[in-house]
């Protein structure tokens, strides 16, 4: 502000001097978003009609100007033309900033977080809009697993949870439209609550380096961004319809955007999906239907130097869990494993019965930004999320239609951050985040709470500095501190409380002793530090080397701390530990990149060393009245994951391209020297794509994906008593399924309907050969084969 005053004073003192008309006016024109120099910008002095263009270095120069005030029009093909009033006095230097509108409508950002600045020293994998549209009828997890190094932890075909470099659940942070998703992500059978059709750009950072979002992303960060709206008068939208043979269903999605040149814009988007039972090659997977209904609204006002946006989305998903996977104790498991086909196969239906999930996620956010010439861009964001999760089991009597788990998680977050260009070469991002979370477990379910009632308060502070040393080398460093406090009310079974010696270790937290239960009030504090250090080195025309070291700290989640009882959907007893501390991961990632139209390759080796890694593994077998159940206990150990991801793309002839991917990850428990459970097996995929933009943009692709057998796994088998033979029989729950190979075909063609509308017709076939296979990362692999052939017809209209 003081600078303005000084400038005004300076100018006003000069205007009184005598007329002098041999002054020059020079300066540069930059993009207001990222400070990039703009070339080919036309500047016209209105009074004299003098016109010049900026050079390759973004500079311009006028001569023979008087000491006077001029009106200068600045224009660029991809920018909105702007007028500036400039006072010339002597040889004057003045720089202009334009908002750079890249050709594509969706590239203009209301906020500074265009996906390129999530982390500058960690390589990002991105799925663009066109690729996402191919997954329109699936889920966000289906789309993510098309990236190298990302796989999916499935519960059947409907619950698809992303797994980054072997890690999942609380170790993967998902950011939806700038908001960190708080949707009970701790559960392995809890899928992310995002409508894939509301996302126009999806990227994955395989590391904790993006500290502005979190310090606990031991596995990585997934960032989903909504469509960006241009600042111009426009009305446009698209509708997508997909029908599938497998599941015999339909997915419909529409989106409409209205924008104005004055900066106002509004977008309305909605999706409906309905599928019946899916099918394996040889049988129907009974009770695997899906019914999803989502809506989102965005309204905003966007100018060069300030903007505000409100966003609301509601995601509602009802899905069935394979009937044959719902079991009593271990003896039912023996029966299921001995059978080659699911124990329950019924006729096709759209009806979804228990066991099923019904999840609703509300997300509302308000954010704004303001650019200050003097100190940078300030962002403010408030968001509210409500996640209501209902899980229905097969029950008896009056409880038949009652959920056995009814959890409501409310989260409020306030975020303030500042991005300042300290010099042309140094950018500092810093911020503060506060969060309040409340979990409420409805006691009317008649089933003891899996997750207790709690209040949680979080405070986070971070900074990230980028230093562009020269054209080749960029350095990045950052740090983050998070403090969280949990105030919990938890009922323990008296027998468990005593068997763990909690009565001696934590007597102070007991609130009340009931006949068979004890009410406790644990109050937990976690202080976590995290940091990142990296460099990017560009060399040659097309090469880049990324190096990143990050340290991430994750506080144990409520499931790891408080589980104590039968988890019916997993058919096992799960036990947590109240005394867990934070796990700390050190990850070193290197990426070698060659980026070129003809041949691109990324090679990304990494090593992730995690101390106090929380694993759950079988420790015992417990007798109950429904027979024996395996007991899985959480414990902390030292773990190490190493691997490499490779992507390559080679244009071997005109219009033809070969795309290849390879991912390998090995995980070890370094304390016990055994492999970690649930690591993705090696997989390799090759795709040949023919695309001709001159012939209706026709695209044909054939993909071959080979998944190896996982040979590194711990032995978690246990013995079960068989009443008929009176012997104890080993139950093999640890062996991994055989390798398998899948062929997928996709095709699409564009048809111009009129000047403004375009129809895209797509035909895809997944699992072309109708191969029967089981996937190690599918939790229901014991009970049924994976999906058989699916033919999808997709119609998209852009208008």
């Amino acid at each position, binding site marked *: 502000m003081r600078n303005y005053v000084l400038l005004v004073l300076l100018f006003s003192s000069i205007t009184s001097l005598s007329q002098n008309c041999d002054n020059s006016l020079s300066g540069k024109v930059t993009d207001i978003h990222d400070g990039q120099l703009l070339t080919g910008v036309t500047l016209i002095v209105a009074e004299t009609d003098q016109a010049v263009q900026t050079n390759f270095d973004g500079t311009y120069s006028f001569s023979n100007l008087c000491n006077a005030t001029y009106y200068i029009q600045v224009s660029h093909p991809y920018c909105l033309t702007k007028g500036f009033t400039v006072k010339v006095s002597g040889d004057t230097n003045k720089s202009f900033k334009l908002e750079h509108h890249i050709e594509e409508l969706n590239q203009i950002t209301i906020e500074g977080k265009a996906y390129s600045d999530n982390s500058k020293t960690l390589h990002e994998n991105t799925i663009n809009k066109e690729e996402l549209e191919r997954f329109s009828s699936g889920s966000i997890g289906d789309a993510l697993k098309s990236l190298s190094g990302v796989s999916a932890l499935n519960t059947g075909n409907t619950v698809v949870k992303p797994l980054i470099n072997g890690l999942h659940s609380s170790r993967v942070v998902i950011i939806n439209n700038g908001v960190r998703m708080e949707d009970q992500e701790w559960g392995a059978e809890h899928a992310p609550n995002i409508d894939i059709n509301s996302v126009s750009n999806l990227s994955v950072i395989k590391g904790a380096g993006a500290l502005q979002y979190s310090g606990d992303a031991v596995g990585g960060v997934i960032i989903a961004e909504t469509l960006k709206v241009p600042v111009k008068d426009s009305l446009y939208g698209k509708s997508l319809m997909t029908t599938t043979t497998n599941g015999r269903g339909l997915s419909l999605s529409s989106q409409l955007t209205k924008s104005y040149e004055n900066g106002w814009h509004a977008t309305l988007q909605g999706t409906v999906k309905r599928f019946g039972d899916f099918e394996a090659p040889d049988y129907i997977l009974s009770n695997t239907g899906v019914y999803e209904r989502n809506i989102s609204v965005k309204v905003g006002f966007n100018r060069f130097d300030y903007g*505000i946006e409100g966003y609301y989305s509601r995601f509602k998903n009802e899905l069935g869990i394979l009937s044959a996977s719902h079991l009593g*104790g271990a003896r039912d498991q023996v029966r299921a494993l001995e059978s080659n086909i699911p124990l329950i196969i019924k006729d096709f239906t759209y009806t979804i019965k228990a066991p099923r999930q019904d999840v609703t996620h509300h997300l509302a956010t308000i954010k704004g930004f303001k650019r200050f010439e003097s100190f940078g861009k300030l962002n403010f964001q408030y968001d509210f999320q409500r996640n209501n999760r209902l899980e229905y089991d097969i029950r008896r009597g009056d409880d038949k239609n009652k959920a056995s788990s009814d959890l409501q998680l409310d989260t409020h977050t306030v975020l303030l951050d500042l991005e300042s260009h300290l010099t042309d070469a140094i950018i500092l991002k810093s911020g503060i985040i506060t969060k309040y979370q409340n979990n409420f477990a409805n*006691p009317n*379910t008649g089933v003891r709470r899996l997750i207790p009632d709690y209040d949680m308060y979080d405070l986070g502070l971070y900074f990230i500095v980028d230093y562009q040393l020269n054209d080749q080398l960029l350095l990045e460093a950052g740090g983050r501190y998070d403090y969280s406090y949990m105030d919990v009310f938890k009922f323990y*079974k008296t027998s468990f409380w005593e068997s763990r010696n909690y009565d001696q270790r934590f007597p102070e937290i007991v609130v009340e002793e009931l*006949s068979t239960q004890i009410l406790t009030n644990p109050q937990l504090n976690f202080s976590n530090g995290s940091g990142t250090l990296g460099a990017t080195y560009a060399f040659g025309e097309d090469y880049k080397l990324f190096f990143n070291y990050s340290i991430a700290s994750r506080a144990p989640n409520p499931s790891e701390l408080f589980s104590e009882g039968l988890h019916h959907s997993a058919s096992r007893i799960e036990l947590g530990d109240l005394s867990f501390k934070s796990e700390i991961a050190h990850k070193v990632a290197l990426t070698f990149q060659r980026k070129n139209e003809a041949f691109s390759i990324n090679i990304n080796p990494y090593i992730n060393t995690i101390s106090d890694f929380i694993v759950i593994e079988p420790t015992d077998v417990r007798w109950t009245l429904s027979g024996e159940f395996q007991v899985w206990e959480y414990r902390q150990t030292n773990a190490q994951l190493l691997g490499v991801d490779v992507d390559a793309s080679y244009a071997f002839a005109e219009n033809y391209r070969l795309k290849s991917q390879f991912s390998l990850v090995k995980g070890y428990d370094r304390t016990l020297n055994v492999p970690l459970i649930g690591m993705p097996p090696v997989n390799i995929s090759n795709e040949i794509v023919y695309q001709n933009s001159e012939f209706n943009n026709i695209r044909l692709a054939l993909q071959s994906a080979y998944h190896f057998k996982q040979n590194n796994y711990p032995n978690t088998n246990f013995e079960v008593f068989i*009443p008929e033979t009176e012997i104890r029989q080993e139950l093999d729950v640890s062996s991994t399924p055989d390798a398998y190979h899948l062929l997928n075909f996709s095709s699409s063609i564009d048809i111009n309907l009129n000047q403004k509308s375009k129809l895209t017709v797509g035909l895809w076939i997944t699992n072309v050969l109708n191969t029967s296979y089981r996937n190690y990362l599918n939790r229901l692999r014991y009970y049924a084969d994976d999906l058989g052939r699916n033919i999808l017809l997709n119609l998209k209209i852009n208008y």
Partner: protein
Amino acid sequence: MKKIKFLTLALIISTLFIGCSKDDDQQPQPVNEEEVITTLTVTLVPEGGGATVILQTRDLDGDGPNEPVITTGNLAAGVSYSGSIVLLNETVDPAEDITEEVEEENLEHQFFYTSGDDLDITTSNENLDTDGNKLGTEFTLVAGAVSSGTLTFTLRHEPTKPNTGIDDAGGESDVIATFNVAVQ
């Protein structure tokens, strides 16, 4: 601009109010576990008089770490017993009789009796559901020659009915209780 600022502020404040308005019930209510079966009691009354045999398994902490407490008894060779099964939920006071629920939903339930190869007993004459298929909360048990082995009672929820026995019944096991029994 002023209007926007005001609207923003108003929205933020209103959402904060929504968020902060449900902090009244501090201490959560304990959950009454309505469905848990803690106790299975098989009563075998000898036809024509004699000592009644009680087989019972009782697990008051359900899926907790305590093992079920099992009471068993011995059968008399050559005697025919009329058997009945009672299921209780003793986590609630007074205890709830789950057998009633099973009998109400008789089409969706069935008891199976499995004896080890060495134990010489036979079961028959199960009571029926409303469709005339076996339910099995009541039955007849005949103790054969002197022998010993295990006797297992399994309650299946949603079995295939009718069936030829436990092997093709399917469904989910709600109760599995195994007793070491001797015929003397």
